[in-house]
């Protein structure tokens, strides 16, 4: 049995048998407490500056950001963005209640399908669970209302993010997930998949020269809805 062979070789190297119960309990305690380590000072800022840092970092990584006063402005901003990029007014959107609740009827020319992405979809609208200012990173935990393929198949990904969901460091985003998510299968908080996305897809495999749009989206556009008075610039 490989399992026993591997474990006993490790224990032989460590010059001990299986961990005594008290030590195992201590390690389980460490996992349950999941202590934080050093968190970089760069994201420890007042709210408005934290949001500004997030925006700056998204742009540094070749993403784009539009700041919108409230959710009702989202469909219009999408129509305008697609027109500017010379893209047809059609998109596949995450079947998320926040997205379903947007005033789509105000823009009847926009064709919106609420589902997972398929080959041939040019534009997606995805729902961000959180934004991480430290590196301009978006967190997308998979769920029925947030299919993973929306992050991958279309050439253009538009992301809806509320400013109140921007945190400083990765650890704070994990704590939001721990607090808010329940996984039906494990009873824990971790869904099947969590993508941390920082800018559009890229490759530097050809002569170390950066090219955008390798296999995933070539464009990443964040619609930042200002729902947090303390975060306004």
């Amino acid at each position, binding site marked *: 049995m490989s399992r026993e062979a591997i474990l006993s070789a490790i224990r032989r190297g460590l010059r001990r048998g299986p961990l005594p119960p008290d030590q195992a309990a201590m390690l389980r305690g460490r996992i349950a407490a999941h202590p934080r*380590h050093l968190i970089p000072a760069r994201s420890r800022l007042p709210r408005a500056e934290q949001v500004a840092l997030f925006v700056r970092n998204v742009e540094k990584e070749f993403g784009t950001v539009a700041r919108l006063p409230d959710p009702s402005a989202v469909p219009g901003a999408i129509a305008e963005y697609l027109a500017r990029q010379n893209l047809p007014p059609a998109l596949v959107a995450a079947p998320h209640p926040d997205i379903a609740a947007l005033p789509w009827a105000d823009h009847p020319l926009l064709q919106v399908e609420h589902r997972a992405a398929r080959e041939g979809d040019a534009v997606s609208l995805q729902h961000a669970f959180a934004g991480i200012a430290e590196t301009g*990173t978006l967190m997308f935990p998979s769920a029925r209302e947030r299919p993973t393929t929306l992050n991958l198949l279309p050439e253009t990904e538009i992301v809806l993010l509320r400013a109140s969901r921007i945190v400083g460091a990765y650890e704070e985003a*994990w704590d939001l997930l721990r607090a808010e998510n329940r*996984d039906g299968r494990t009873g824990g908080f971790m869904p*099947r998949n969590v993508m941390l996305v920082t800018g559009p897809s890229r*490759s530097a495999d050809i002569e170390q020269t950066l090219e955008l749009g390798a296999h995933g989206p070539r464009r990443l556009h964040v619609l930042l809805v200002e729902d947090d008075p303390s975060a306004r610039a």
Partner: protein
Amino acid sequence: MVHLTSPAFKANAARALSDAGLQKALARSKPQFQAKRAKAAAGLPEFEALRDIARDIKNHTLAHLDFYLEDYAAKVEAAGGTVHWCATAEDARAAVLRICRAAGARTVTKGKSMISEEIGINEHLEAHGITPVETDLGEYILQLRREPPSHIIGPAFHLNREDWEKSFRESHTDLPPDREFRERRDILAEARTLLRQKFLAADVGITGANFLIAETGSSVIVTNEGNGDLTQTLPRVHIVLASIEKVVPTLEDACVFLRLLARSATGQDFSVYTTFSTGIRRETDLDGPHEYHVVLLDNGRSNMVGTPFQDMLRCIRCAACMNHCPVYQSVGGHAYGWVYPGPMGSVLTPTLVGVEKAGHLPNASTFCGKCESVCPVKIPLPKLMRHWREREFERHLTPATTRFGLRFWAWFARRPTLYRWATRAAMATLGWAGRKRGAFAALPLAGGWTAGRDLPAPEGDTFMARYARQRREVRR
């Protein structure tokens, strides 16, 4: 599988030095890799402190590796996944084939994985009628060219643009032969279009893992292209190839490594896609794989636990050591003759294939110490290479002339007065003989040095003589 040519390191290195294409690629990449890392590290004031923390987390994990692996495996299974414990490369190949056959797989897409090179999974699948398709752009062209990777994160950095164009024209015969590649982007676009069809058609997706997380039973991949995510999201079956030292206890522990990894590797603050996969598609999910398998590989690593080489198990495969190594930067990755090149490979390869086959590698070092100084988990790479040299000597694997030379030197070194007298005489003689040119183009017993470059002539003094003189001056 990468065919082992480490025993021919000297011949490989000589060939590499006269390979114009490789030298062009090295000259292009070296300043980029080093400057980008330096800038990224300088941009995070906590970088040095994080290196210490990262080292300590890995040491803690390795000291309890049996516990964390069992805990991790239990969490994977709770999320509907299966863990296949594999003591050897052969076990791992058999496990992957078994899963692919059960899935009725004809094509398998692959994200970048050094473990897959280590176990030679592509050849194994091909031999059994299953087509593996590499989807990382660099790995893809290497598969077309039937070449092994030459770098652990930039596998095809040794190729130039003309090589890409030539390989694409030769391989993509369905496309018009006279099409133009005006920019690098056109090469990328062609690969994107072709590989998209492969992603959609694949029955199984195989990825590696940068980390495994005991707390949640997650495997983590870090990529820029998004190929790994397409590989693991679209097919019905996802197989993760991971070695046992990849486990860390918690998400918070993983955050420390993630802050170091991209900065050390490519000089990015964070890679584009850092993805945590935990088990199978949930009942309500609209996408994701129906099967999730982790092929957990030992392949000699457990024997490193409790030895001086345990430090090597901290490695997170960032490639900073090779990017800063004067030897690697002169000969590239293929010369090392196996999966893992550069300083980390010089330590790891002898443990995995035997020092009798890979003894040249730990000897191919100038001991400048740069690798250790940039290693995000502070592996004492020069010290570990020295351990290999000692073991090689103890096991009488060192060539007779080298052994004789070392004995001869040791005999003198144990007699300080005689040693000083002899070196003084030798330095004075060489200084006098080389006084005109200041260097020697040839010298008896120094052919290994002078074949490729001049040997600078000593200035006539020994270190000890100069040291004594300076101390006298200071006292005065």
